[in-house]
Each structure stands twice: as structure tokens, then as C-alpha cells.
């Protein structure tokens, strides 16, 4: 019976976060616009030649995705922290890790999935060779959840800190490096027609590890920040 109640709590929290996000539909577009904008800056800076852009495409798209993810994470706990809902969450009888996972999942559905959908468009903008496209989407599919999960730890640690945005970047970006390395490599290799099973396997392994450990760390960090 407790399992069922836990699932209900999980689902309720997930649904609530999704509904709240939809109520502010305009804000949903912001990380996506940022994503597209940042990618668009590169041809402007480097010139339109596809011979310059194509090799850079995997890295540029992934760095932009990383930054967009990080920026959008900032508000993950902010509104709940401000109105006291976060304290209530921590006081509930359910394991915090599960509730945290609900919020992170909501965040990923709202910001990560649209990134994945938009990615082929950006690939076209940067002349990413066609063979790289599936790898691009797959790497984002595996990688963006890791970004959300690991990023949530940093957000939880800085939720009480005034203007913690820059500190958040300093905390999270080093932890994002492995995802970036393997994901960009996967897309780059695939674009050249090479096999990318190894990179994707590593990304999947990181996802499993993050799923298992990150919510626990985030929960612990929340307890500390909310006191």
C-alpha cells in the first residue's frame, strides 16, 4: 500500500510541476530560444563556410545544450523554496529522493525533450553531416537527463544563496565535462561514419549512475539548504 501511495505522491508532484510550467507557457520557450541563439552566434563569428562549421557542429551544439540546461535548472527549486512548499516536501513521509526525481523528471520533460527535438534543426544550421544526426539525438537523449540530474545537486546546494547563478555554473560545469566529452565525440565520430557504440554505452552508464545517486545527493543538499 505504501508503494502505491509513494507512486501517487510522485505522480502528483510530477503533474503539478508540469501544469505550473504550462501555466507560464511563455517562459518555456526561453531555454530553447537561448539554445538556438547561441548556436546561431557561431556562424556569425566564424563565417558561413560549411567546411569550418561542420567539424565544430557537434561540440557547439552540445556546449549550447549544456548552457541552456544549466540556465534553466536555476529555477528548479526556487519557487518552492520561496513559498515554503520545499519545506513541506522535506517533511513528507516519502523518501525525498523519489520526490526530487519527480521534479527533475518534470524539468527534463520541459527543457530537455524540446532540446532533443530542436537539435536536428541546429544540425542543419551548422552543416552537421547527415550520418551524425541520429547520434546527435541519441546523445542528447542519454545526456540531457544526466545534465538535469547532476545539475539538480548544484541547484539544491545553492538554493538559499543570493544570486547563486554564477556559483552554480562553477559547481556544475566541471561535473558536466564527462558528458560533454563523450557526447560530442559520439556525434563527431558518427558524422564521419565511424562506430559510436563505446561512447553511447558510456553515456548510458553515466545515466544509470546519475539516476541511482543524484536524487539522493540532491535530497541531502536540499535538507541542508532548507535547514
Amino acid at each position, binding site marked *: 500500500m505504501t508503494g502505491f501511495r509513494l507512486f501517487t505522491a510522485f505522480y502528483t508532484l510530477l503533474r503539478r510541476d508540469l501544469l505550473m510550467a504550462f501555466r507560464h507557457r511563455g517562459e518555456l520557450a526561453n531555454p530553447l530560444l537561448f539554445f538556438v541563439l547561441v548556436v546561431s552566434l557561431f556562424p556569425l563569428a566564424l563565417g558561413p563556410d560549411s567546411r569550418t562549421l561542420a567539424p565544430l557542429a557537434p561540440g557547439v551544439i552540445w556546449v549550447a545544450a549544456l548552457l541552456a540546461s544549466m540556465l534553466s535548472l536555476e529555477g528548479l527549486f526556487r519557487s518552492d523554496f520561496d513559498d515554503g512548499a520545499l519545506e513541506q516536501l522535506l517533511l513528507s513521509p516519502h523518501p525525498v529522493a523519489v520526490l526530487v526525481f519527480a521534479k527533475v523528471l518534470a524539468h527534463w520533460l520541459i527543457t530537455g525533450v524540446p532540446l532533443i527535438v530542436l537539435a536536428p534543426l541546429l544540425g542543419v544550421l551548422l552543416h552537421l553531416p547527415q550520418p551524425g544526426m541520429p547520434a546527435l539525438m541519441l546523445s542528447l537523449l542519454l545526456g540531457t537527463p544526466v545534465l538535469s540530474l547532476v545539475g539538480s*545537486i548544484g541547484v539544491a*546546494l545553492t538554493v538559499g544563496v543570493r544570486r547563486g547563478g554564477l556559483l552554480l555554473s*562553477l559547481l556544475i*560545469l*566541471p561535473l558536466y*565535462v564527462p558528458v560533454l*566529452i563523450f557526447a560530442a565525440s559520439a556525434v563527431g565520430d558518427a558524422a564521419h561514419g565511424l562506430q559510436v557504440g563505446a561512447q553511447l554505452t558510456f553515456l548510458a552508464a553515466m545515466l544509470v549512475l546519475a539516476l541511482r*545517486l543524484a536524487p539522493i545527493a540532491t535530497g541531502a543538499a536540499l535538507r541542508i539548504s532548507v*535547514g
Partner: protein
Amino acid sequence: MWTFIHRLASPKHFYHLAGRMIPWFAWGCALLMVAGLIGGLWFAPPDYQQGDGFRIIYVHVPAAWMSLFIYAVMAGASAVGIIWKIKMADIIAACSAPIGASFTFLALVTGSLWGKPMWGTYWVWDARLTSELILLFLYLGYMGLQAAIEDRQNAARASAVLALVGVINLPIIHYSVVWWNTLHQGATVSVFGKDDIATSMLIPLLLMGLAFTLFYATIVLMRARTAVLEQERRSQWVRELIKSL
């Protein structure tokens, strides 16, 4: 043995015990460093490929060792602080961070200075230097988080979580960077090429490594003692002690 550990956890006992240990560590460090410097700068023969330029390793490598060792100590102390709620452990972790960061910085700059004559550029994205750079960010993030949270207790606990998350990620980050490096460059910067390192070159390295370790021990104890005085300022023993300082 447990009594000893219990006493370490007590700020008052730690303060006095550390006070007695510091001179030993300091003198040991000084002796080892003199021996290491003489061995490295004078007695070790010039390297076959790098000439006298290789002598930079006698500061670069020990600094890199320390940057990792201190992070490990920080993470360990953080774990002890979180699990057994021992404030002394939190103090050790917090005091270690600036020392570790400065060693990481030293490793980066000496690595860069070593690079210029060897590979022609001041910076090379090789596995070791790149890992050190990320490690520096981890240290600075830890220190930034500590500074940003006002409540001392919360600051200690939050940075403890960060240190533990960081230490779990360190092998992953390092592995990723090594993998990335072999992919893009092929050559890793090895300290001494393919030949086995000569003993006369190795011994000063070990001496310097030990010297730096004792240096860290000395400084962290110094910092921790001051932190203890501040933390326990309302207690009787500190009030009495202050009168005699």
C-alpha cells in the same frame, strides 16, 4: 585507539595535540625539502632528452600529487563530518581547501612553464593538465560555496556534500579526459619518456613529495587551530588560553 580518535574530535584536545605536532611536521618538511632540492637541482643528472629543463618536475609533480591527495583528505574529512557529525572533521576539510587549490594552481603554472621549452607552447591540453584545471574549478567551487552560505553549520554540510559528489566524479572526469586526449592527440606527456626513471632522479622526487605532504600537514593544523579558537571562543578553555597568548 578509540580514545585517541575521540580526543582528536574534541576541539580542545585537538588544539593542544596539533600544537605539539606542528614543530615536528615543520622541521621534517624543511629537512626533506632541502634534501630534495639538493638532490633534484644538483645531484640528479640532466635528462637525456630534456636537459636541465626536466628539473621542473621536482615542483610540478609533487604539487600535482598534493592537489589530489588534499582533495581526497577533504572528501574523507567531509564524509567523517557528515556521517559521525564531528565538527573537527568539517574544520579540517574547510582548512584544506585553500591549500589544495594553491597546489593545483602551482601544478598548472609549472606544467605550463615546463611545456614551453618542451613542446613549444605555454599550454597543451594534455590529460594531466586538463584534469588539473578541472580540479582547480572543483576546489574553487567548494571554496565559493563555503563562502556563500552564511550559517557555518550549513556551509560545512553543504560543502561536504559537494566534496563527496566531486570525489566520486573525479575518477570519471579523469578517465573521460584521458580518453579524450588519446583520441585527439595520441601522445601523452609522460614525465620521462619510455625509459625507466633513474634512481638518482626518482629519489629527490619522492623526497619533495614527502616534504610537500608534511608541509600540508603543518599548514592545515595551523589553520585548524585558529579555526578552533574562533569556533570555541565562548568556551572556558579558550578564554583562559587567550589570556596567556
